[in-house]
């Protein structure tokens, strides 16, 4: 997997390069601001870009702006935004349009190395990776809490994992239940929330996110 990293803290940038290289991925560029990120993506056409939201010069959301621009200009490049914070506004802006090849994780998640690399791989392949915290906030900000309240606790758990971008198989492993059980929960959720059934994982995530918005 060919990766571009944009992170202004040198210690984290070097750590990420090391981590991904150790696992056999190809870090083609590691930069420290939004403009350099867009230039690097244009030059290397990577599979995925890891983008810190807060970078120079203004230290507010230039990473997010660059990420949105990249998603617009090069839909084929996966974008994994990561940040010290989770803000619903950012999530909404990032997910506007499409949920394929996009991720939004708290920086903490790199501590669980394998899960992080798995999420990155998912995004590179056109999937979705949302931080549980992001999903919790989307659920919290949703205007349709009444409908969500009709779900059983287990169904809500499955809905959350679905929104994070997990496949049925991954959800089954996480909850330690059978694939069949997960499929049944998913079907119930789609019925209760009146969502159109959808086979593909990322379209399923999109449907859920649309619903939550």
């Amino acid at each position, binding site marked *: 997997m060919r990766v571009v990293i944009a992170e202004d803290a040198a210690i984290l940038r070097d750590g990420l390069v090391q981590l991904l290289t150790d696992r056999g991925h190809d870090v083609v560029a590691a930069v420290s601001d939004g403009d350099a990120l867009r230039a690097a993506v244009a030059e290397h056409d990577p599979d995925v870009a890891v983008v810190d939201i807060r970078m120079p010069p203004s*230290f*507010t959301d230039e990473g997010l702006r660059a990420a949105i621009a990249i998603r617009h200009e090069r839909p084929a490049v996966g974008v994994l935004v990561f940040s*010290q*914070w*989770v803000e619903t*506004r950012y999530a909404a802006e990032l997910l506007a349009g499409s949920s394929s090849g996009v991720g939004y994780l708290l920086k*903490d998640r*790199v*501590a669980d190395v394998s899960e992080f690399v798995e999420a990155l791989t998912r995004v590179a392949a056109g999937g979705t990776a949302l931080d549980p915290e992001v999903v919790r906030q989307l659920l919290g900000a949703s205007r349709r809490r009444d409908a969500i309240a009709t779900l059983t606790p287990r169904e809500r758990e499955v809905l959350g994992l679905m929104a994070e971008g997990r496949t049925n198989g991954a959800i089954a492993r996480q909850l330690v239940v059978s694939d069949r059980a997960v499929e049944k929960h998913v079907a119930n959720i789609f019925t209760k929330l009146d969502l159109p059934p959808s086979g593909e994982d990322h379209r399923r995530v999109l449907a859920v996110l649309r619903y939550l918005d």
Partner: protein
Amino acid sequence: MTDTTPTAWRVFLRAPVSGWTWRGLAYLIVCAPLAFAGFWAVGICLMFGALFAITFLGLPLIAVTVLGGRRLGQLQRTLGRSMVGARVDDPPPFRRRPGLFGWLGSALKDATGWRGLAYLVVKGPVAMVGAFGAGLLWIESILLLTYPVWWSIFDVTNKDSHGVKHHSEVQFGNFYFDTWPKAVLLSAVGLVAVFLAPWPIRGLVALDGVLMRWLLGPTQSDQRVHELERTRAHAVDDSAAALRRIERDLHDGTQARLIALAMNLGQAKETLDAAGDSSRVRELVGGAHESAKDAIAELRDLVRGIHPPVLDQGLDAALATLAARSTVPVDVQVRVPVRPSPAIETIAYFCVAELLTNVARHSGATRATLDVRERHDTLRLQVRDDGGGGARIGAGTGLTGLAERVRTVDGRLSVDSPDGGPTTVTVELPVAS
């Protein structure tokens, strides 16, 4: 001393033709009708206001009069500054408390307005008599100065009590100015009068200047309050900037290091796992990994309490995130077209955070609304919930601390929470600290 004498003489000799004198005269003439009208308007309004004070009309009438006193004071200061260069500073602007009764109370207690009215009352008679006297003095002195001219042109005669004819227009008792030497003498008197006439004008303008500084300028305590407000605003902004800097330093330094540390420990743990290690080392590394992750989460909460970074995006983004994090569903409306100062945004953010926490913890509500809007340079935050009510300032709900914090920028917090609910907490903040 020797060189000041010619200067003083020059000032004296040039006084009748100096622009200053004529501007002063024009000023007195312009002020006279204004003072006249103001004097009577104040009297009539206050009288009717007092008469009707027991009805609903009286107090508003007095309030309007007081604010009118402010306006007329402003007009008077502008006139004084532009026409005669009066040196008088503006008093503090009118501060109204919200609501009709707030406005009424603020207006009735507005010292600047009352002092403006006092100025009109004192100024009225002075201005009318003064303008009349000063004008008359000028006209008289010019008439005397030019006496020989019109005495010779209009050959006027009048008879005294004995029936004797005199060629004279001016007389003192039985003394008639009917010959050329006498006419020239009178003209000389007029000449002296012309040089003296500017000084009453100057005197009146100076007196008015003193009155203005006394009644239309800021009082000493106004100036002191202004100074204190300025330094306090500075302190508030300073501390907001300092907190933001601390947050930035933590973000760039400590947090980044902790994450790198957790990442390394994570890698170490997975390497040991892959090697099938189940020794004490694996256990220690696993523990360190968990601790590092906890430290990151704790530091994040800590930093959020210092200065939430999302505030850099504006209040609406920050409040949307706050509401989304709340366990009680919150409907959010934020209408703030102009960004308040950073210190005010921070206070607003923490107020909402605290209020939403209260809703979740104490109210037993199932729904809450957050309404934030800006009007008349006031930022109003309102949190309503459908819970059990009974919230009081000082009842240990953190509302007391919140009210204190709001007061540091002249804001107000009010609670409406009857037993049985619903509860509405309103916070009002000035948009600039």
